[in-house]
């Protein structure tokens, strides 16, 4: 599933054995896609000597916040779910 800028998303709260680039503090949080960076090899397999294919879309997601402090974090597509 791909996402559009402005779309509401939820970052998956699953655990993952081994190297991955989704920090624990963002798992389960909701947010808004603010930027679509393009596709990159998947660090979860690349870290173990593989080619990291298929490439994954990378998004900049602004975590939901009701103040004027926002945390924006880069998240790969397979960690995102649509937040209906």
């Amino acid at each position, binding site marked *: 599933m791909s996402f559009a800028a402005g779309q509401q998303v939820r970052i998956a709260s699953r655990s993952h054995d081994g190297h991955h*680039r*989704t*920090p624990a*503090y*963002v798992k389960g949080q909701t947010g808004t896609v603010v*930027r679509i*960076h*393009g596709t*990159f090899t998947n*660090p979860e397999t690349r870290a173990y000597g593989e080619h990291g294919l298929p490439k994954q879309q*990378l998004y*900049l997601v*602004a975590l939901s916040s009701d103040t*004027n*402090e*926002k*945390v*924006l*974090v*880069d*998240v*790969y597509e397979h960690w995102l779910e649509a937040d209906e």
Partner: protein
Amino acid sequence: MSHDHDHDHDHEPIDEPAIALRVQALESALVEKGVISHEDVRQRIDWLVSRSPADGARIVARAWVDPEFKGRLLADAREAALELGLDPGPSPVVVALENTQNVHHMVVCTLCSCYPKALLGPPPEWYKSFPYRSRAVSDPRAVLGEFGVVLDNDIELRVVDSTADIRYLVIPRRPAGTEGMDEEELAALVTRDSMIGVAQPREPVTA
């Protein structure tokens, strides 16, 4: 470290020697397996320490004097950097973020130490420290305050966590009173920390 136990060996300082030994072991293993050579490592270190915030500062100064360049920088930072003879390379991808009167960006890598090394050189020690990496996302205004930056409450603070393939370069706001300055003079105002977003640029010295 506690010294109330009885033994006859010297204690190493904590951390550095242990990590140095691990790095040496890793490098030896990679060389042995033919993945890299010692020369590769040496060249990479030479390249890294040859980079400095002066490169990023040139880019920011150009953006301050040339709005069209700034537009190109925000759209594609590598292409813009190439115009100044600087090449951050295709990967990781550099993305520039502009601070405005309404928005202030500050950059962190909570997972490790991702940093636009190609344009700023090696990251400062504090950038790699656990306190900065955790507090930048949990209490960013306090962290900024410790760096001497107090933002007006109506300025939106965006903490950008570079967890993946993007390296963020902050374009700080041009200080007031710099209208008559040329690009080189402006670049001297652009500090490393202002391009991480934990400081404002230097103020111009008024004669």
